[in-house]
């Protein structure tokens, strides 16, 4: 009895926090999204409008780019993160601790600073281009292909933005996969081997399906911040690879003040992301059950 009474009491700060800083802002976003910019208030005459949503059609390329880049970044993270997590989980305890520190180390530094340093690496006179120049790579290429190459254009490309996302969010992919693989029941693997599965089959039919929950939570943790980022696309894209986050930021803090349009974009993005997550989780559950059966 006592225990049951204590829980809600402990939950009060959390519930209050959520109500104040999660639910209320979302309600405000919804309110703003349907408000006519001219009227400025939803419940005034002519206050309600769908214009903000109608205008969004012209930003379809930004939506498309955001989702494309975020999906690519997430896929790259899975492709890099899964093997890392897999081998990490198989190694000795000492190695695991070391690897964990190495993975977490960059995250102790400020996120903006980390991303900013990529500019110094990738810029026209950045480290990579200077190195290539020093070893005569450009002369070589120009000699062979008859081109007039002076530097590699890396910043301001979609690839640079994806790189920024992968670099920043890769730990969020590795860690959940790692912890799932670590907790795998070894008797299942032994049983699979006893039943005659070779190591490929063990991985394909036992380990991989069982690590799907880790992949799914990794995907969520990489995809959601990627699709909504604005700092990475601004720094790595030089303002030429606008993503949804930039578009929203522009409406609130940037050159074009229109919080109504900004809220509408944020709302639509939120809905799309929720749908994506829902579909993915359903797909994940189905897969797991199918394998289990």
């Amino acid at each position, binding site marked *: 009895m006592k225990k049951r009474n204590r829980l809600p009491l402990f939950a009060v700060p959390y519930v209050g926090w959520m109500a104040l800083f999660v639910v209320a802002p979302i309600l405000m976003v919804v309110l703003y999204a349907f408000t006519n910019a001219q009227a400025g208030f939803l419940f005034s005459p002519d206050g309600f409008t769908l214009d903000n949503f109608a205008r969004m059609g012209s930003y379809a390329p930004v939506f498309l780019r955001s989702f494309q880049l975020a999906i690519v970044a997430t896929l790259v993270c899975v492709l890099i993160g899964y093997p890392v997590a897999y081998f990490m989980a198989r190694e000795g305890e000492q190695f695991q601790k070391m690897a964990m520190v190495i993975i977490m180390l960059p995250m102790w530094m400020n996120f903006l600073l980390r991303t900013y340093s990529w500019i110094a690496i990738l810029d026209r006179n950045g480290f990579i281009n200077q190195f290539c120049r020093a070893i005569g790579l450009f002369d070589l290429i120009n000699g062979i292909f008859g081109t007039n190459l002076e530097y590699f254009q890396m910043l301001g490309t979609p690839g640079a933005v994806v790189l920024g996302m992968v670099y920043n969010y890769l730990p969020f992919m590795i860690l959940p996969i790692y912890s799932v693989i670590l907790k795998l029941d070894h008797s299942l693997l032994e049983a699979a081997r006893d039943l005659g599965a070779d190591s490929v089959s063990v991985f394909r039919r036992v380990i991989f399906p069982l690590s799907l929950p880790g992949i799914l939570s990794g995907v969520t943790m990489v995809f959601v911040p990627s699709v909504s980022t604005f700092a990475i696309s601004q720094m790595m894209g*030089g*303002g*030429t690879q606008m993503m949804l986050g930039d*578009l929203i930021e*522009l409406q609130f803090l*940037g050159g*074009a*003040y229109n919080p109504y349009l900004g809220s509408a974009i944020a709302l639509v993005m939120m809905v799309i992301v929720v749908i994506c997550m829902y579909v993915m989780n359903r797909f994940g559950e189905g897969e797991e059950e199918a394998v289990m059966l």
Partner: protein
Amino acid sequence: MKKQIVLAFTSALALGLLSSCAMEEVPEGSQSAVQTGGNRVVNVCSWGEYIDPSLIDQFEAETGITVNYTTAESNEALYSKLQGTNYDVICPSDYMISQLIEEGKLAELNYDNIPNYALIDERFKNLSFDPDNKYTVPYTWGTLGLIYNSAMVSEPITSWDAMFDPQYAGDVLMIKNSRDAIGIALLDLGYSLNTTNEAEIQEAYEKLAEAKEAGVYQGFVMDEVFQKLEGGNAAIGAYYAGDYLTMLENNPDLKYVVPEEGANYFVDAMCVLKDAQNKDEAEAWINFMASTEVSLKNMDYIWYASPNTEALEQYPTYYEETYGEPLDMELYEIMAAPSDVLENCESYLVSPLEIRTLYNDLWTDLLS
């Protein structure tokens, strides 16, 4: 910690007073100094790299008022920030000041508290954005011109055309605020910066969009321009004269030009918001910044020209005394443009609401 330092300074100041004052005045003087040393603050929002930071300490030490100094990226960004934050002093440019006055967001100043206003050159009083000069004290002025790296282009650049020329694809940095970027395109097309003709503005937008499509722009930047141009990472950019002089210290190949089509001539002025909580402190800050001594020191640090008559006259001497070498007058003319250059320049006027909305919409379209 800071409070203690301020307290220490004010008590030192009080001690100074003590030595020069008659005995009976001592308790009163020291008392008031301690009282004011406590919790007087002023919230200032200005641009990045736009003040000599030691002046903030000097002001705090002299007055006991704590300065909360923050920065905004552009006039438009400042305007957005004003929706949610309370500042006392802001330092917007001409056209944004008119807009803020029009919207009733600025407080009328009490010029009795700002005696140094008298030192401001007549050229910078009663300007179009504040015709009766009730709201503002000018802070700096200058031009928005074209900066290029002479080692990276084949011939000297004299026209805004270079900002749209596919020949320089990937080498150009466009400024990241709607008024300046669309303004540059308008100038290049031979239109007025203050045109309200929507077709002309649309044409300017098309010009920018076309150049963006052709890959002319390496990026849209504000203060990132320093690292990009200084490091030879881009060849051409549009930015403010004062910042050019800062960049020049780090890269002697950089050149500044007011293109033949003309340029924007801006005045940034300090004003106090109507909702300001600390109006007296705000006026003390403005008065401090307007004084000749502070203007000289600030001018020397940020390389933007001050509107203070004495500071403008004394700066070459000040420079020589400080650095032991004469000031390059060619550079001084970039900093404080002479009248024949200014004649070719146009300052921004506030646009009607529908034009501002058009600018915002086109700007979003351009970047997306």
